[in-house]
């Protein structure tokens, strides 16, 4: 039962899983969700957001089913058992590549974001490198360090969400009307860019291996996603309600502008404080995706833990160059669209297929040979 590739002392509680998921999901998505979604579905973007979240929740059950069949095992351990060596390794590699892409693009967005809002004259390369060092440092600490850091960051950043409330008093209902005017097709299409804000839950492929109480994984992850669905939907409603869809076409990171639109006494630029603390969340998104990729690779190559933790150094170079590939933030946006589509395959369909095949073939940890 015990997976030889994972340290058996490494186990996390359900609350820590919640913290990891929350940190992994919250990140750059929040900053741009109103813009990317409203581009497709206009003032009905909030419906698309709601829809995207609700689509995900049933698929969380597939993750949970897989982890109940293979307690203590990650995707890399069980994929080959379920669909055979070739297809299984393809699944592994696509998952790892997806995490690398997420880490790299979010890293790039973070660097762009920092350089736009805080350090216009600093070359983004230096920001990338510093963040990568931190990410490597965190990935070497293993799941326990990541889980604890996630908890701290969650406590640290959660209070700042209050800052999203005061500007909401100026919502103009007219900005949100007419409901469903853009048509069902565009609303459904709009949910695809909205998915980007929810990605991060695919860390369940890795993180659920460290949970001993596998029965409650679905409950925890569904709670987490539900909170985010509500949160994002409210944010989208508030932003579109306050700013209207027209302005959103011309600005990047509308969430920050949305906070900026309210004048707070004494602290004039509360948006900067929000942005400052939000970078912690963005960093955690990168860190968790990076760690998933590191662990995935070291398991794929069946490296010993002491070598496996150093995979990060090589991976960081790859992440750096991927992050450098987009020439400007417009290109980053196109890449995000690709990510959203890839994510449908990797984070949503793949667990479903694996879970269905495992159920049909009645494969679980006992049939797994040496697993």
């Amino acid at each position: 039962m015990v997976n030889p590739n994972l340290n058996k002392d490494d186990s996390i509680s359900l609350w820590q899983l919640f913290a990891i998921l929350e940190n992994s999901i919250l990140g750059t998505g929040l900053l741009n969700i109103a813009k990317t979604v409203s581009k497709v579905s206009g003032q009905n973007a909030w419906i698309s957001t709601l829809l995207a979240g609700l689509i995900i929740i049933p698929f969380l059950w597939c993750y949970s089913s897989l982890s109940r069949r293979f307690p203590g095992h990650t995707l890399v351990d069980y994929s080959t058992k379920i669909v055979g060596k070739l297809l299984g390794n393809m699944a592994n590699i696509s998952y790892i590549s997806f995490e690398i892409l997420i880490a790299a693009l979010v890293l790039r967005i973070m660097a762009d974001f920092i350089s736009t809002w805080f350090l216009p004259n600093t070359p983004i390369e230096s920001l990338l490198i510093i963040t990568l060092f931190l990410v490597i440092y965190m990935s070497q600490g293993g799941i326990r360090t990541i889980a604890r850091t996630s908890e701290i960051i969650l406590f640290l950043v959660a209070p700042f969400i209050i800052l999203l409330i005061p500007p909401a008093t100026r919502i103009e209902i007219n900005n949100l009307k007419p409901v469903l005017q853009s048509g069902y097709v565009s609303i459904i299409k709009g949910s695809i860019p909205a998915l980007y804000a929810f990605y991060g839950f695919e860390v369940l492929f890795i993180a659920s291996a460290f949970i001993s109480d596998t029965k409650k994984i679905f409950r925890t992850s569904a709670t987490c996603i539900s909170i985010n669905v509500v949160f994002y939907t409210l944010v989208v409603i508030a932003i579109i309600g306050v700013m209207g869809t027209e302005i959103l076409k011309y600005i990047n990171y509308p969430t920050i502008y949305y906070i900026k639109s309210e004048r707070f006494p004494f602290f004039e630029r509360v948006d900067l404080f929000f942005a400052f603390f939000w970078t912690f969340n963005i960093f955690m998104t990168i860190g968790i995706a990076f760690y998933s990729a590191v662990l995935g690779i070291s398991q794929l190559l069946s490296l010993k833990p002491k070598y496996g933790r150093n995979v990060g150094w090589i991976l960081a170079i790859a992440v750096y160059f991927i992050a450098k590939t987009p020439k400007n933030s417009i290109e980053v946006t196109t890449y995000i669209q690709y990510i959203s589509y890839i994510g449908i395959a990797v984070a949503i369909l793949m667990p479903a297929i694996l879970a269905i095949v495992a159920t049909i073939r009645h494969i679980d940890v006992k049939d797994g040979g040496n697993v």
Partner: protein
Amino acid sequence: MPIKVIKRKKNKSDKVNTPTSSAMIAPTATSLYNKLEDNISLFSALFSDCSDVIFRRFQIGKDNPLLAAIIYVDGLVNRQSVDLEIMEPLMYFTRIDQKDTMSNIDIEIIKQLNITVGEIKEDQNVMSIVNAILSGDTAMFIDNFPIALILNSRGWENRGIQEPTTENVIRGPKEGFTETVRFNTALLRRRIKDPKLKIKGFKLGKRTKTDVVIAYMDDIVNKTLLQEVEKRLNTIDTDAIFESGYIEQFIEDSPFSPFPQMQTTERPDKVAGNLLEGRVAILVDGTPMALIAPATFAQLYQSPEDYYERAIFGTAVRLIRLLGLFLATSLPSFYVAVLTYHHEMIPTQLVLALARSRMGVPFPAILEALLMEGVIEILREATTRLPGTIGQTIGIIGTLVIGQAAVAAKLVSPAMIIIVAITAIGAYITPNYSTTYSIRFIRFPLMLAAAFFGVFGIAAMWLFIIIHLAGLESFGIPYLAPVAPLKLSDIKDTIVRLPLWAMKKRPMIPENRNLIRQGSSTVASSRRRTKW
């Protein structure tokens, strides 16, 4: 009685050494000789050129005297005790029956001699006798017995129990530990009158042979933790243990972390409180500083006084300490970051005020900050080393010169002086002295990060610290517990401090075996239900 050198072939199985000539008495012998004079020469060889070791020969009893000698270290023994409780009764009042000749007196009779000393042990091993003598015991040798009686006559000049110098409280006991480990264990016993309080002794340091004791509550402490502490103590292989810091360095989990992974305290009430939460205390002879393992980050911000004062203020003070921690570490770096990169982050009026105060200052913000923080560290270090009387004077002169003259000379801005003052004071808000080092020196990398990357640098540095703290463990206990990993039931005594009657259970961290601290029917909680 003349020395009789008995010529007998040395029997190896015989534990008693019998030298063929006095030349064979080597200081390397491991067990005692039969003859008193041989033993005396053995020990005088061992203690050659040790003028503080006193050899005293005397006779036991008057009528049929036995030859005896005592060895002790002058200054380590209570002279009165040696004179009046060991020698006087033996010389004047001990009667040995006529029929008890040398040959048939056995060890039992010896042990029942008139010695009015509380603790008597017998010993045959030369090295352990030497250790006992050097620890302040008196060793007594009697002719024809290859055995030494170790009489506890310890008593040396020591500092009395005084108010702790590093951890002052306004309300609470003013007793602090002293340099003598026995007094310290007595202070613990006086607080916990329970036979379950175990005090286990070790001797560490090959040359210093320092007495080290670990104290724990037998029915509360987690046995794995206890075994781990003992195991780590037993791995210490060193010449000298002078202070509990030596032990700390040998047994801590991450030696290169800037954060202390054990609590150091000189307050017996703090140690007693921690023992009752299932921790293990390590007390070292020669230092008033006791170690408590395991430690968590939250604990370093707790003072015993939090529990003595009203719960609301206990909580308030803890929040203030957290604020102090934040200001002491990050205020100068925010100053640097804001002035260098992000003028827009602070209100316009404040920016203008800062700009006006910096008018004419030739240094960039980072140099100004490094300069002032560096100077304040120098001043602080110097005032600790300065002799008491001039320390005050120099301190005042130093602050005046730096505060007034530097501003007047336009070398630094007045705003910087305020920030330096806040950080200097804020670093001492922690009740644990070792932690002040961490706080004081973390702010330098933070300032540099702020100078290079503004608030992003601060965020990155903080993340680095948070990740580091999240990875730290002290004897298997996560350093950031009970916040990360979250133990909701322990929050009651972490950031907040609930009233004592609300803390019915011991904290879950460290894991302990006896969770219930008090019943549900304490006076306070029953009073709560009473309708007035």
